[in-house]
């Protein structure tokens, strides 16, 4: 206890007072680590909020359901309910229909309408009508008694300002109808799903509203307590073809797995800022260790043990971590406001619909961010602390011999670095696990470490090669700078390592985003070709489960405008736990205007066989995730048909909710069943007219003839919106990148400050032997130029390798897709000099540090 008190006292005397004196640097470092910690924490908390919202939503909707009956991509006949409900193994059964609808004329943000039989559903889900003014028992009975009544979720009632008894106009693909609001759901259980953006209605009303007469989405089951495997099999065997019994946890788990993988990816990206923050802590602690070497010697000579000094420096790291983490709290609370919405938006667009109402503080996430921040800071302080430990007490005697500070073997370190870099190659060949590109991330870490280890040697070589030339170029200051860099050892190298990391991240992300965008653009223009797309209203959000009516199809096929139609039907299915779309389309007409971006098997015969319905083509993501490729057999239950077809080719596709399998629609109808039209795309036959104007008039004609029944979007708008989603997704990445940069710039400032302060006596000597202030400042400036150039060159190289990893390894492992690699030369040519400039700007405060105190003062102190 006494020794702890003494330790804290000494730490405060020796370290805190010193930090207090140099508060500006300390604040920079603190800000850096705080930013890093804040980004890490808020990114994780944001994703966690989405994950939680998704999970609770799924759980609330599943309620006490044990098994679910459904038909992939289709509906169940409602007649199945009474058959199932009387099955001896079944305890309870509840039919359910659900779909997204929107409030007419409001914000167009769809919400979930759930259609249930309130009586049969009672054993499954709990909900209550919130207490209100017109309070009577059995209000829910109105759902059965009166058509077009609903109970509104709390969030919706608040958002639109509705009270029980009022009418709300709802819009669905088929019609727009006034619903009477029977009540508002009390905020508990089922009412918490979808963040309260839902409404309950009777199953009869749901069918009448949507036109799904005779159909239900699914039947939820609760089984008799003593359920044997035989009884279970018994249920399955009585099911009509195509009906599958699954467990409600399956859909939840596949959604959770996607969000978790995304969380890991974002965590790693945000960890980069923490990583750069670590360099910052390192450089400041190292500065303290170096510039106070003499004081350390005095401490040692007065009886402090080496271990004590080690602990003092480790404690410095801890204090930076602790203070940084505390400072991160206000920064996080600011950041999270932006991220929470952005992340849930991204997850909704990319993976599964989530509605995040508010942030949930998760103690594990907070603990994790605390531990990670502290760990990083302590780790950063470790090396300087080791160095402090090595200080010999006799240095207190000022015997000017630093002979024992032997030069570190730069060549050996470089060799190890190269070994690490070489390891990247085999690592990149390993497969990822469950959407988590672990080998890819390890490869990235090795790459950074390898380059950081290489940097002392690079600097040495740079100094050696350049010193004479620099003398001609920049005179004596440049020459001295070159000489200094050459011999500066590991300390400079570490700062250069930080710069390498930041530049490499920048370069690789620029390349990746560019390649990604280029490829997505290509895909959008070829595969998402078409001048106008029409589906039922809210078709996408309802997974195209409501086909176009025969009247609409008749109208569309007899339009006046000279157009070709490519009808399609998209089924949202699962292959094991992996979600994918099975897309049927008129391949012949499609290929006349558009094409696929082939990855494998783009042969004439493959296309010919696709057209003649001999097989399917699958997306790269589908192929990577399922392991199925050209020549394998694709098998799936689609509505009532069991589809078995060979895979003819693999194409690029960037739909985010899993993979895609394409097949020719006419052949599907012939070989299996009539899939109905889920949507149509129109191609204008005359390509030489004003296409925009022609699309507008086509649209007008369709509205005139079909009324307001269809959701339509022009091909141009659709492609733009795809790219917009893309850009929004990367907005988060860009922000993280920018923050990493700010931290790297802070790093350069501290590093150079370290270099200046550390050599105060050297600089004084230079001054004493006749160098002018200007010359010395120029020398420092040249040093920073050399460091920045070395860091940037190595960072560029590292970035090229990293971009390869990102495009072909990490993306493949986490999303299943790769892109056409493309160097964004324009962006790089513009930005790299800009980075140099920024880095040099960051050097200015350090240069101003030189002789901030008059040399005579410094002489007196020593």
């Amino acid at each position, binding site marked *: 206890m006494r020794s702890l008190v003494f330790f804290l006292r000494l730490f405060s005397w*020796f370290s805190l007072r010193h930090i207090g004196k140099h508060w500006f640097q300390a604040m920079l470092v603190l800000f850096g680590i705080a930013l890093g910690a804040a980004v890490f924490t808020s990114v994780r908390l944001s994703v966690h909020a989405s994950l939680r919202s998704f999970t609770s939503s799924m759980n609330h909707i599943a309620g006490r359901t044990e098994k679910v009956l459904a038909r992939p991509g289709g509906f169940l006949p409602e007649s199945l309910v009474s058959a199932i409900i009387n099955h001896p193994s079944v305890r309870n059964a509840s039919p359910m229909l659900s779909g997204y609808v929107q409030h007419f004329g409001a914000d167009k943000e769809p919400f979930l309408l759930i259609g249930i039989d309130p009586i049969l559903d009672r054993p499954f889900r709990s909900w209550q009508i919130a207490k209100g003014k017109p309070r009577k028992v059995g209000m829910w009975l109105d759902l059965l008694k009166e058509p077009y009544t609903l109970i509104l979720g709390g969030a919706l009632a608040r958002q639109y300002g509705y009270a029980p008894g009022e009418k709300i106009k709802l819009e669905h693909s088929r019609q727009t109808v006034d619903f009477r609001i029977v009540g508002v759901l009390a905020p508990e259980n089922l009412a918490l799903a979808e963040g309260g953006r839902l409404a309950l209605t009777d199953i009869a009303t749901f069918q009448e509203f949507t036109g799904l007469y005779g159909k239900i989405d699914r039947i939820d089951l609760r089984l008799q307590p003593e359920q044997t495997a035989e009884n279970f099999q018994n249920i399955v065997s009585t099911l009509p073809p195509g009906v599958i019994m699954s467990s409600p946890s399956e859909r939840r788990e596949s959604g959770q797995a996607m969000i978790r993988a995304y969380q890991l990816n974002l965590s790693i990206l945000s960890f980069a800022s923490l990583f750069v923050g670590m360099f910052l802590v390192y450089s400041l602690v190292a500065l303290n260790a170096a510039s106070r070497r003499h004081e350390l010697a005095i401490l040692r000579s007065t009886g402090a043990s080496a271990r004590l000094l080690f602990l003092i420096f480790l404690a410095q790291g801890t204090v930076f971590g602790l203070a940084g983490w505390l400072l991160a709290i206000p920064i996080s609370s600011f950041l999270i406001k932006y991220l929470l919405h952005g992340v849930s938006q991204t997850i909704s667009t990319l993976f599964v619909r989530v509605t995040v109402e508010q942030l949930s503080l998760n103690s594990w996430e907070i603990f994790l961010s605390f531990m990670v921040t502290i760990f990083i800071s302590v780790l950063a302080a470790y090396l300087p602390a080791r160095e402090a430990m090595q200080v*010999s007490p006799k240095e207190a005697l000022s015997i000017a011999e630093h002979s024992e500070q032997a030069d570190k073997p730069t060549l050996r370190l470089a060799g190890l670095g190269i070994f690490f870099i070489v390891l990247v190659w085999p690592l990149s060949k390993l497969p990822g696990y469950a959407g988590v590109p672990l080998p890819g991330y390890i490869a990235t870490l090795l790459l950074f470490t390898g380059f950081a280890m290489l940097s002392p040697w690079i600097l040495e070589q740079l100094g050696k090669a350049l010193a004479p030339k620099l003398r001609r170029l920049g005179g004596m200051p440049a020459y001295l700078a070159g000489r200094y860099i050459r011999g500066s050892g590991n300390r400079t190298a570490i700062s250069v390592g930080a710069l390498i990391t930041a530049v490499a991240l920048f370069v690789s992300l620029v390349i990746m985003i560019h390649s990604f965008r280029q490829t997505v653009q290509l895909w959008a223009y070829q595969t998402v070709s078409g001048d106008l797309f029409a589906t039922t209203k809210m078709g996408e959000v309802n997974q195209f489960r409501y086909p176009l009516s025969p009247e609409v199809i008749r109208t569309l096929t007899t339009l006046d405008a000279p157009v070709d139609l490519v009808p399609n039907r998209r089924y949202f299915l699962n292959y094991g736990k992996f979600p994918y779309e099975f897309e049927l389309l008129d391949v012949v007409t499609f290929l006349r205007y558009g094409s696929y971006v082939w990855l494998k098997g783009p042969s004439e015969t493959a296309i010919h066989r696709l057209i003649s319905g001999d097989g399917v083509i699958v997306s790269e993501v589908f192929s990577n995730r399922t392991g199925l490729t050209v020549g394998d057999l694709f098998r799936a239950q689609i509505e009532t048909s069991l589809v078995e077809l060979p895979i003819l080719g693999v194409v690029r596709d960037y739909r985010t909710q899993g993979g895609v399998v394409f097949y020719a629609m006419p052949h599907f109808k012939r070989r299996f069943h009539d899939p109905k039209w889920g949507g149509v795309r129109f191609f204008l036959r005359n390509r030489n007219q004003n296409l925009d104007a022609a699309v507008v008039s086509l649209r007008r004609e369709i509205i005139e003839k079909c009324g307001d029944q269809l959701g339509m979007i022009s091909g141009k708008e659709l492609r733009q919106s795809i790219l917009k989603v893309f850009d929004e997704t990367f907005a988060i990445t860009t922000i993280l990148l920018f923050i990493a940069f700010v931290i790297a710039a802070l790093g350069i400032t501290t590093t150079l400050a370290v270099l200046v302060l550390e050599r105060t006596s050297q600089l004084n000597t230079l001054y004493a032997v006749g160098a002018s202030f200007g010359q010395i400042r120029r020398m420092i400036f040249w040093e920073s130029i050399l460091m920045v150039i070395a860091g940037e060159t190595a960072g560029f190289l590292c970035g090229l390798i990293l971009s390869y990893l990102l495009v072909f390894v990490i993306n493949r492992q986490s999303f299943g897709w790769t892109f056409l690699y493309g160097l964004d030369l324009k962006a790089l040519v513009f930005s790299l000099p800009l980075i140099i400039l920024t880095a040099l700007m960051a050097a200015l405060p350090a240069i101003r540090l030189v002789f901030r105190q008059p040399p005579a003062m410094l002489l007196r102190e020593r």
Partner: protein
Amino acid sequence: MRVSEKKTVIETKALTRIYSLGDSEVIGISSINLEIAARELVVLKGNSGSGKSTLLSLLSGLDRPTSGELKVAGHDLIKAPEEQLTRFRREVVGMVFQNFNLLPTLSVLENVCLPALLAGGWPEKIEPKAIDLLQWLGLGDRMAHQPAQLSGGEMQRTAIARALINDPAIILADEPTGNLDSRNGQLVIQLLAELHRTRERTVIIATHSNLADAFATMEICLKDGMITDTTCEV
């Protein structure tokens, strides 16, 4: 060289310290044989580079010899492990440096207390003792000051107080007057002599000035790292 009949506190045999500077070697001291009895006031003389500081750093346990034997106050400093050396520095010797070596972030009082605190003492016991010492050294009104606010003489007196806080048997002073004007230099030497006389410490002063000659009970002359029998020529 006189051999004392009193109890020996320092004993060296063939003590040698060689520094390697890159490829070349520099001899610090070479084959020093020495016996110093308790309660001597030794003046260690020699030119710059004669090996005075090297010898002091070895005697104080700040550095280890290249070869030879070294016993100080019963401690075999050749064989002592690092922890024992640290304890030795805390408890047996007190150091006074030419450049004072006060820690700039600590106040005068804190600087003085530091070695005792490092040795694990109770702050409430140490502080009165440090205050006594400082008052005795005429620094009673300077205790809360930072080293940067002190004059050279005051800094050296603080350093002497620090050297005394753990009641060491031996005080080692390395050019204690080197950075002081002659009046302050005189004062410091008188203080060290008083320590020897009234507090019965072994005091070793390495210097090339003659200020301490009058108080010396023993004089050692170093030249090129070796003890010379001839008179010291400084």
